[in-house]
């Protein structure tokens, strides 16, 4: 009767510099890709204005909106020469990885989300570039936005969630469980429950002592204790995971201000490395364990003799146990779970395109 906390986290074995970030594909795509977009696109309008070529271009009967999308297309083409092969290689790698073919759908969605992510930064940079006086200012504003949304907001979210929804300390959590195991969740101690069950069972079989029962009552005690314990663990871990949910919800709220946070949540969920998936796995493993123990206790109850600690079950009992198989949530479930993150990203995309269009419209006016 014990449920494990997540133990042996790799963070424990990491040195202090792991804090700067780990060089993973996700890190590169989420942190460096937007910076690449910014460096590619920041002089688009502001640089041309400084060089005086913006006036020429606009005098060639090109509408500002056409110019915006033309610039975006050009930058996107340049980017896709670089990013396209990487994403394509990822998908091909996925196809040939063992069991990877089942995740092609996840891969495609992930690629699309990354494209949206890059487009957000592209249009934002173009909008800023069209809006500000100099290329320098465009660079400063965009790098500032990048730094705030990639570094400041995630950390702020993590601290805010710690302060607003504090998790219990390991000590108080364990003390609570111990106390509940001792005296029961609703004030009725496990010993009393066992006593009551014994009386009921004796009455049912019209027996005087447990030895007279046709079953091994010890098996029923095991089963009862197991289930009482399960209730305690369900309560405590349920409460804990509810706090985790609140904390994750706060991260989601902060992601409204940071496309990177929305991107990260989506990427983790689609790659199967999110907390939700860990908890799903834990839940399935726990259910498997419970079914297993229940079967064992049933076997003791009906097949063993009372007071015989040397009872051994036959091979057919062991043969009847199915191996554990983790069933990951289907893509549809993941997508519905990612609703808020997708919404944030679509909003940002829409916002950045609108900002871009508005900004280039103004360019024409200032030229007049």
């Amino acid at each position, binding site marked *: 009767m014990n449920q494990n906390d997540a133990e042996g986290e790799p963070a*424990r*074995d990491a040195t202090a510099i792991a804090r*700067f*970030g780990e060089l993973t594909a996700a890190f590169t795509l989420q942190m460096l890709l937007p910076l690449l977009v910014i460096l590619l696109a920041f002089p688009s309008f502001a640089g041309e204005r400084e060089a005086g070529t913006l006036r020429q271009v606009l005098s060639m009967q090109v509408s500002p909106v056409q110019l915006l999308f033309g610039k975006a297309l050009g930058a996107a083409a340049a980017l896709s020469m670089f990013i396209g092969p990487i994403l394509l290689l990822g998908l091909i790698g996925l196809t040939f990885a063992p069991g990877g073919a089942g995740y092609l759908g996840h891969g495609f969605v992930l690629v699309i989300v990354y494209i949206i992510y890059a487009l957000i930064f592209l249009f934002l940079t173009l909008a800023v570039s069209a809006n500000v006086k100099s290329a320098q200012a465009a660079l400063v504003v965009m*790098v500032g936005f990048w730094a705030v949304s990639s570094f400041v907001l995630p950390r702020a979210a993590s601290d805010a969630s710690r302060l607003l929804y504090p998790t219990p300390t*390991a000590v108080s959590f364990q003390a609570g469980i111990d106390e509940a195991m001792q005296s029961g969740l609703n004030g009725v101690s496990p010993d009393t429950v066992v006593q009551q069950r014994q009386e009921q069972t004796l009455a049912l079989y019209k027996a005087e002592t447990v030895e007279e029962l046709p079953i091994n009552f010890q098996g029923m005690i095991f089963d009862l204790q197991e289930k009482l314990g399960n209730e305690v663990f369900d309560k405590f871990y349920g409460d804990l995971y509810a706090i985790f949910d609140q904390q994750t919800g706060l991260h989601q709220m902060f992601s409204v201000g940071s496309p990177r946070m929305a991107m990260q949540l989506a990427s983790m969920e689609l790659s199967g490395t999110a907390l939700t998936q860990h908890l799903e796995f834990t839940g399935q493993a726990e259910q498997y364990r419970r079914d297993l123990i229940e079967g064992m206790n049933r076997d003791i109850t009906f097949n063993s003799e009372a007071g015989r600690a040397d009872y051994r079950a036959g091979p057919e009992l062991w043969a009847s146990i199915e191996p554990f198989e983790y069933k990951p949530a289907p893509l549809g479930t993941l997508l519905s779970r990612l609703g808020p993150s997708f919404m944030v990203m679509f909003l940002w995309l829409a916002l950045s395109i609108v900002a871009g269009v508005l900004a280039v419209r103004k360019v024409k006016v200032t030229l007049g």
Partner: protein
Amino acid sequence: MKGFGSVFIQEWVILKHNSTWWAILALLLVLTVLAALNGAARTDQMAEMGQGLNQGEMQTQMALQNSVARWEETKEGDPPSVASPGALGLSVLSHYTVLPPTPLAALSIGQTDVQPTYYKVSAHPALTFLNDAEIQNPLNVLAGSFDVAFVIVFLLPIFIVALTFDLMSKEKESGVLGLVLAHGVSKTAFILAKGAARAVLIFLLLLLVGLAAVALTEPDLGNGAMWLRFGLWFLVVALYAFFWFALALFVNSLNKPSVTNGVILANLWLVFVVVVPALVNVAATTIFPAPSRVELTTEMREATEVADQESSESREAFFFDHPEMVGGDANADQFFLQVLATDSAVERAIEPLMEEFGAQAQKRQEVVDLLQYVSPAIMAQNALNAVSGTGTERFTDFSEQVLAFHENWRGFFTSRIVKGSQMTAAEFDQIPTYDYKNLSTEEVLASTLSPAAGLAFFVLVLGVWSARRYARYPAV
């Protein structure tokens, strides 16, 4: 250095009317204050948690001692079961060893959120408590904390770069440089004065925020050791800021357009603060990877299984599984001896793996300690952690102290279990107590000053190099 003073004053006048400059200063101020408040809240939480931990344990110990003392007075009936050192040490008593926060802990959260700040020490092998961890949402660990060290290491360079990337190039582009030089101002004096005008306010701001954070979080402002730490803190912050100023001046000396300077500096920030640390991390973790913790747990379970099986033929094994059925004292003693035997069998089996963990971790740290000199950001982070007492070194030292205390604690009970003696009330007072010894001032100095020296070296090289370039800087 002709003209330094007049350019410096002139710059101040210009900056006073520059709204971008004030906006950047205000933003830096707000971020640093928020970070300091956040760090203070975290430190408070930690201190509060540590204080309450041992109260329950001490009460239990006192109550048990009293019950033994009462029995000793009357000698009626059997001695209380807690008079057995086995029952006391192996199931009832334990002791929380707490790592107290140092002064300035609020300025850098460091490794505090991933390393244990307390252990529950019992008479069982150390491996039973060494791996205990605090409950945390992994999403929060992933993001890290918004503390002052983060503002300094990550954000301060961005502010400095934003303020200085066009320091020389802009003057040249607008034609001001030629005019100034025509007045006989030296190029070096000109750029230094412009840089100094900006630096002075930033340094002042950091000093004030640091002092404010200390005033907010430190109960004892007369503590000399704290002020020494604060001096070190400001030294590191100043050197790190100097590095970025020097880097910006150097990039300006390349005589490139402002936009190019901006891109170069943004990339250098990326390289020093993001890419190089990540690469160093990859290097350290691939050369000396941590053994699998899953393997550790599995081995521990297997060893326990084997030890149990070995004793299963004997009668005591039954008591091991059913301690509630242990009857007389003889059986109880047998039972606790059996527990000791199982404990040490498991310990023997796990020891090689535990040693590998320790050895790999140490080698990994050595790699990082060595490679930190390639990036000022790593040096600054390490030094700031060391000053705040939240670096790896202090956590390693803490776990070593805890292990030494555990040896004591365990020895106290096991020697009595093996002898088969009973605890007297007086012996309760001899139960070892835990006393944490802070790292010595020399140790803190050593772990702060070597990265600080690295930073100073970077500043010096950049300074000398830039000075030589500015001497040959074309005015038009």
